[in-house]
C-alpha cells in the first residue's frame, strides 16, 4: 500500500519492447515537474531503479518470449509526501529472481549490473509472481527537504 498523502502519479501501459523505456522516462520527467518538492537526490535514485527494472523486464521479454509483442507491461508511479513508489506488472513467463543473491559483476563485465544498481539506489525492491503476472514493487523513501 502507498504510504502518505498522494501528490502525483503516472500510469503507462504498453508492450514490453525497448520503445517503452523512453515513454516511461518522459512520463517520469513530467511527473517530477508537478512534484517539484521531491529532492534531486531522491529523483535520481528512483529514476535509476525504475529504469533498470523496466529494462530488465524488456530484456527478459526478448530473451524468453523471442520479442513477442504479447508481453504487456504496466507501470505506475505514485509520489506522496513520504515516498515514491513504483509498481510494474507484466504478463510474461515467470522470472526466477533471487534478490538476496545479487552482486556486482567483475569490473570488465559488459552486463549484469542492472539489478545490483536498482537494489543500491532504492530503499525497497521486491519481485513476486501474482495471478500470472511478474510484479515488481520499488520504493524510495523521501529524504527530508
Amino acid at each position, binding site marked *: 500500500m502507498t504510504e502518505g498523502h498522494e501528490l502525483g502519479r503516472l500510469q503507462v501501459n504498453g508492450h514490453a519492447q525497448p520503445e517503452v523505456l523512453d515513454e516511461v522516462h518522459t512520463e517520469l520527467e513530467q511527473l517530477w515537474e508537478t512534484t517539484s518538492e521531491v529532492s534531486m537526490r531522491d529523483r535520481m535514485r528512483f*529514476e535509476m531503479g525504475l529504469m533498470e527494472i523496466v*529494462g530488465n523486464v524488456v*530484456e527478459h521479454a526478448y530473451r524468453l518470449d523471442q520479442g513477442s509483442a504479447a508481453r504487456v507491461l504496466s507501470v505506475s508511479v505514485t509520489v506522496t509526501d513520504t515516498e515514491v513508489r513504483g509498481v510494474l506488472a507484466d504478463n510474461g513467463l515467470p522470472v526466477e529472481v533471487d534478490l538476496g543473491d545479487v552482486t556486482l559483476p567483475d*569490473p570488465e563485465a*559488459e552486463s549484469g549490473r542492472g539489478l545490483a544498481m536498482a537494489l543500491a539506489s532504492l530503499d525497497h525492491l521486491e519481485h513476486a509472481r501474482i495471478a500470472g503476472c511478474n510484479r515488481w514493487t520499488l520504493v524510495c523513501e523521501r529524504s527530508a527537504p
Partner: protein
Amino acid sequence: MMELDVRTDERGIGVVVPRGRLNMVSARSLRDALDTLVNDGTHRIVVDLAETTFMDSSGLGALIAGLKTARQAGGDLRIARPTPAVTTVFELTNLDKVLRPRESAEAAFDD
C-alpha cells in the same frame, strides 16, 4: 532519445558526445560508434558526458565494451565531464576507478 556526435580531433583522438539519455536503446548506437572508431584506426577515444542526462547499466556496458576494444587495439577510452546523475552510476558500481572522470575532453589524454 539520444543524439550522438562523433569526430576525430587534430591529434587523432576520437571525441564522442552522447546527448540525452543513454539507455538500452541508445547504448547500442554508442557501442557501434566506438567499434567503428577503433576499427577505422582511432584507438584513443574520449566520451564527453556533459550532455548525457541519464545513463543506465546498458550505457555503462557500452562504455566498458569500448574501453576493452580500445585497449586491445593498443589505445584507451576515457570519459570527461559526467553529469551528477551519471557520476552517481559510476560511483555506485565502483567503476569510477576504472573510468576516472576527466575535467575536459581536450585534456583527457594529457596524462
